């Protein structure tokens, strides 16, 4: 495992846990120490989207941290109840706007679970290919955001250069740069344009050529980066599992939970890849996990392009999608963790109930638990560890 040697190296130098920095309320009363209440966000330049943190500060030490969500709430689940099944897909694009493909995929899996439709293998491969490109386009900016929050502005621009290039591929395939509406119930909207596989090959090669330089050499060894992230936001496996954390935030504590392997869907069983874990459970570990997952995604993309069969890209769903009464469930591994959709049908052509389980929302529960005791500047890297997207937690 990645973190093993590093952990042994620093076992002796472990600093005291952040909670030891907290002054007990008795002492505070006795000496008349006061705390400052500070409201961080919802309009804060470095906050991830529209999140408000109510902080109680003792000097620079955070005593209490309450996340307040809901500033971007759009009633997506209720709107979905009044739209026909296919018309919900463009709405799911607006949830976690850094993982649109995964949102569409999760919803389509849930509806296909209701319909029992057979999806052509080529469509499955295209879905996985697009989802893995999306994972790259989400993980690389995540690393950039982490650095932005630490005060280094440059990596985010290199990250967005990559994201823009991936988005150009998406635009050629789907017609839009962000709100794709590409994965449909029963398959995908259209086959890949003939020149796209070559373009993806070219892009992947160019990414591999400078991935090491721009995202590893620039960041990983930097002493300031290490001192700002090592042992910051440290959590145990038990804590992470109890909070329902998934995705890189969970895997950096050493739990090898990945929907792609544990609850396989689509063509993931036919592809070769590893689940990346680290043992440290701090911000630096999550960075390392994301970097390694990017490399895994690259390998998956290559396999998809090599193994992709010919054929149809759309299964037979009938003209109107009107499932029988029942429930459908779909879960995918989005870049932030487990994204699950639960659809209840009452036999009409609109869903009776749609529920999205978004990893941003669930991972956010970590903040209350692990932030107290850290210094104020440490909140930002911890946000980078959790990496929530406001479209995801507010739905």
């Amino acid at each position: 495992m990645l973190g093993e040697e590093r952990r042994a190296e620093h076992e002796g130098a472990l600093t005291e846990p952040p909670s030891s920095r907290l002054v007990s309320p008795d002492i505070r009363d006795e000496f008349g120490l006061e705390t400052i209440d500070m409201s961080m966000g919802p309009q804060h330049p470095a906050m991830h989207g529209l999140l408000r943190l109510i902080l109680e500060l003792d000097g620079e030490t955070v005593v209490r941290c309450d996340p307040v969500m809901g500033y971007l709430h759009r009633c997506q689940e209720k709107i979905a109840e009044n739209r026909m099944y296919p018309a919900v897909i463009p709405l799911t694009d607006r949830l976690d706007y850094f993982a649109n493909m995964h949102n569409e995929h999760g919803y389509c899996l849930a509806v296909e679970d209701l319909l029992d439709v057979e999806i052509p293998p080529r469509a499955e491969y295209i879905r996985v290919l697009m989802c893995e490109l999306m994972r790259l386009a989400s993980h690389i900016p995540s690393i950039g955001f982490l650095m932005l929050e630490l005060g280094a502005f440059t990596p985010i621009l290199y990250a967005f250069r990559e994201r823009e290039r991936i988005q150009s591929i998406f635009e050629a395939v789907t017609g839009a740069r962000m709100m794709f509406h590409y994965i449909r119930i029963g398959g995908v909207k259209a086959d890949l344009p003939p020149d796209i596989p070559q373009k993806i090959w070219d892009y992947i090669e160019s990414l591999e050529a400078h991935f090491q330089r721009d995202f590893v050499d620039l960041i990983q060894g930097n002493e300031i980066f290490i001192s700002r992230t090592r042992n910051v936001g440290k959590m145990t496996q038990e804590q992470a599992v109890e909070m329902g954390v998934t995705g890189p935030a969970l895997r950096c504590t050493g739990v090898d939970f990945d929907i792609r392997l544990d609850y396989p869907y689509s063509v993931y069983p036919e592809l070769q890849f590893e689940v990346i874990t680290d043992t440290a459970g701090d911000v630096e570990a999550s960075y390392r996990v994301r970097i390694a997952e990017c490399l895994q995604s690259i390998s998956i993309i290559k396999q998809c392009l090599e193994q992709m069969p010919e054929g149809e890209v759309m299964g037979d769903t009938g003209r109107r999608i009107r499932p029988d009464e029942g429930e459908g469930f779909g879960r995918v591994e989005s870049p932030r963790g487990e994204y699950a959709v639960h659809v209840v049908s009452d036999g009409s052509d609109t869903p009776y109930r749609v529920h999205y389980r978004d990893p941003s929302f669930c991972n956010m529960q970590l903040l209350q638990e692990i932030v107290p005791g850290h210094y104020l500047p440490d909140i930002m890297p911890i946000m980078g560890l959790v990496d929530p997207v406001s479209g995801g937690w507010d739905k």
Partner: protein
Amino acid sequence: MQTFLNLLEVEPIRLLISFGAVLFLVLNLAAVLTMAERKVSGYIHLRYGPNRVGPRGLLQPAADVFKLFTKENVSPGRSDLWVFLGAPIAMFIPAALVWLVVPFAPDAVVADLNVAILFFVAITSIGALGVVMAGYGSRSAFSLLGALRGAAQMISYEVPLILSLLGVVMLTGSLSLVDVVQAQGDTIWTWYFLPQLPMFITFYIAGLAEVKRVPFDLPEGESEIVGGFMVEYSGMTWALIQAAEFASMAVISAVTVTLFVGGWQPPLPFLDLGPFNWVWFGIKTALIMFTFQWIRWSVPRLRMDQLMDLGWKVLVPVTLIWLFVTAGAMLVF
């Protein structure tokens, strides 16, 4: 023309004129440095930086200043108005004053004080006052945190900054900056940055911290406390704070050049430009300022406790040890 030159001989008039010239220089320097900062950051970020106003965007600072002049000067409702408005001035004046003792060329110095280094040390320590005033006057939690950080950081880094000067003072035996430059000679290997390498690095790092540049920009810390002590400023007060920041950055670079990199002295004797030796001073200062900007766009920010650790546990001991080494070496040789 002749009468004008004669006027320069008269002491108070010469002082006033040259001080006016230096003030003009400092104000323009802020504009030029803003432009340089944006261009360097743009090029590092694979962008072009500002390139719309004027040829290659060179008139951008003028447009910025025009915009800032026309903006309303907003002050928070319950702020301490006089302290709030006084803070930018309290920040700008020290940054401009240090220029009085910086020698641009053998004769081009506003005031050749025999205690110039002491003057520099005294004036830079006032800088913390403006930060505290800004943070206190704004009456905002973010500003207050920024001011507290700023005060702690600037006062702490004053210590290694002063200690690292002492090696040069010992070698020269004078507190006058002109003497320091002249003692360094006109060859690159006799400049003080070689024998005083740890002191040079310490002075550079402490100087970075003193002017609140990345990785020591905690008082601003835009990703956690938004803008720190200057979060409530707008319009020209904000512009004055920015000008003060850039002016103090230029001052620290100029003093670094003067103390360690030979001031106006050419790197090799045959490169002596005679009366145009101030070009060497300009080139060296620009190089040091470029490294400031280069570092800014390459590294993240330190945390308060790590900053204090670096200052008190690394820089201060290093300077003290090297003072002993310098003293010993002077005894032996």
